[in-house]
């Protein structure tokens, strides 16, 4: 018998609980208390409004380039809400919604997008790494953190976010392989938003799913409807439980869509059709979730309007506060801070030189 099928450890499944037409698979609905459901909703709306305002501010030159999360709110909130504050989040650069959930103040995000390093500081009580722009570079960090948790005998986990494009980078494959080899409590959340700038998902990789890449490492992989908050939550919950039990890492592919520009430096009309975007807009994760909350009698149309007004106020207030903070961050010599534990003498000399140059320039 020279040739026979090898049975792999895992199969790839697709999970959907609440579909775009509002149909619900009651057996699969994860347990989430009402307060959390409402917080999930509010976080998504806040993130959406924040994106919209930032787009406007970017066009006015008040902030610089940033990557909107619009359309991906459910895949971010669904996943981040399924882990604990004591767990660690290792983001890429599009996780605004998840960051808000974790407690990152809007002012910090605004400072970052306005070009101030101080905006990149994670609040002391938050277990998040800062934004990582080099695609896939953060993935192995989550593996290292998770390994350290395991060595310390703690029941925490590390969860990392990345996009469909990231799965082509060597760093992705090396990271997943090590996670499985060391059986670390890591959850890998791939936000498959169909595009890596102008590169469509089909050109990025020929595999049918991104979730199946886990199989190559002997890891379970699951594909979920990323615009279905309940499905993302359920999948992440399962992965988190597995990690905490010591059963190792999981890869979750959230199938979603980047409704907006890649970043504000991008013009998607060059490479994708309006029809495609419109079709995905009909699968809006917030609208879908609102419908669900309304049938559960947790939200009324009036409530939704009220929340909207509230979050817009919050966003505008954050800009005012960020502006004040920018004024206080007036001195560019702070670029010499936080490079080493102790500043070496040659660097102190340069810092003094810089001070002098600034004074000379001011005249």
């Amino acid at each position, binding site marked *: 018998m020279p040739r026979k099928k090898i049975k792999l450890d895992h199969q790839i499944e697709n999970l959907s609980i609440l579909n775009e037409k509002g149909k619900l698979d009651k057996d699969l609905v994860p347990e989430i208390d009402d307060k959390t459901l409402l917080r999930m909703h509010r976080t998504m709306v806040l993130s959406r409004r924040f994106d919209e305002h930032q787009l406007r501010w970017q066009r006015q030159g008040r902030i*610089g380039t940033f990557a909107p999360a619009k359309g991906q709110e459910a895949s971010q909130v669904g996943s981040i809400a399924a882990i604990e504050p004591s767990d660690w989040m290792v983001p890429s650069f599009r996780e605004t919604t998840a960051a808000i959930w974790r407690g990152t103040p809007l002012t910090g995000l605004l400072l970052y997008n306005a*070009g101030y390093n101080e905006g990149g500081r994670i609040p002391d009580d938050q277990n998040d790494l800062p*934004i990582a722009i080099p*695609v896939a570079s953060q993935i192995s960090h989550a593996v290292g953190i998770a390994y350290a948790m395991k060595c310390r005998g703690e029941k925490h986990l590390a969860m990392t976010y990345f996009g469909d494009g990231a799965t082509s980078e060597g760093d992705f494959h090396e990271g997943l392989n090590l996670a499985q080899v060391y059986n670390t409590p890591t959850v890998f959340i791939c936000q498959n938003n169909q595009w890596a700038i*102008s590169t469509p998902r089909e*050109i990025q990789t020929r595999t049918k799913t991104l979730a199946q890449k886990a199989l190559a490492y002997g890891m379970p992989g699951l594909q979920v409807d990323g615009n279905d908050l309940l499905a993302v939550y359920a999948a992440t919950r399962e992965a988190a439980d597995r990690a905490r039990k010591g059963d190792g890492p999981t890869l979750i592919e959230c199938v979603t869509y980047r409704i907006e520009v890649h970043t504000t430096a*991008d013009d998607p009309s060059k490479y994708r059709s309006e029809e495609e975007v419109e079709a995905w807009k009909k699968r809006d994760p917030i609208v879908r979730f609102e419908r669900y909350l309304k049938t559960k009698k947790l939200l009324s149309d009036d409530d939704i309007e009220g929340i909207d007004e509230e979050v817009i106020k919050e966003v505008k207030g954050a800009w005012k506060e960020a502006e004040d903070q920018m004024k206080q961050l007036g001195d*560019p010599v702070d670029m010499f801070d936080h490079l080493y534990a102790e500043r070496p003498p040659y660097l102190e000399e*340069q810092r003094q030189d810089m001070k002098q140059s600034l004074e000379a320039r001011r005249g």
Partner: protein
Amino acid sequence: MAELTMIEAINLALRQEMEKDESVFVLGEDVGYEGGIFRTTENLYDQFGKERVMDTPMAESAILGMSLGMAVYGLKPVCEMQFSGFSYFGFHQMESQVARMRWRSRGRYTVPMVCRMPYGGGVRALEHHSESREVYYAHTPGLKIVIPSGPRNARALLVSAIRDPDPVIFFEGKSIYRSFREEVPDEEETLPIGESQVVREGGDLTMITYGALTHRALEAAETLSEEDGIEAEVIDLLTISPLDDRKLSESVRKTGRVVIVHEAHRSFGPGAEIIARINEKSFFYLEAPIQRVTGYDVITPYFAREQDYIPDTSRILQGARQALSA
């Protein structure tokens, strides 16, 4: 003759070389259908097709490794790293393979490839999008490092780079991509790699620079002339490695005073090597210590601070006057 931006001039060089030589290929992230995020490869996909203008998955290491393979087999790949700050994903291919293949195979295999990458600050971009770290590559034997300062020389140097028998890294200053236009002839034009240019003549001071900062250096030279009556000779290096010692020596021997201007970090930066070469070749002609005006030795700050990081004309003037004072 047409007035082109540097983007358009680079595009012209690629198009004409691809028309002329069917072994020239273009590959990289977003370079095909979209025409590159800066539009440097605009319309090449339509004209030459997806086999020669390749939209690659995100895989800097494989883009460089594959380029090496293509080059060894006789093609002339021009690959792109979307930003120099992401080229490190493929650094090992550059250092361990691209730079060494001729040497390791004792001349049997060569790697006539070009790797283009935008570098430098000044466009209010995110982290990793504003660095000027050409020395990582200049420190690697086997690579040539070219950095144009405007549309016309970018076009001519890129043509030379594509035809060069060795791997060339071609750094493009983002801040001058569209900031001005220049006459660029339709007919073929090349410039020798390894030669710098005197872009302003003067007998009192030698100002050595390259890339986007050439323009600030020239501005500072004008101010020196107006305010101090000093005539600075400005040298635009164009090639960082191999360095054009001869042209530097000629100027230094004439002026005896030198200021070096670059955006790259100061320590172990290009200026350090230039000073060493001048010391080795022309030390006794110097009348004052050589001055450096450079980026500071800190990680390039986010953009709210970038104009305080990149040398401006006032810092260049300060450095120049220091070089003149002793």
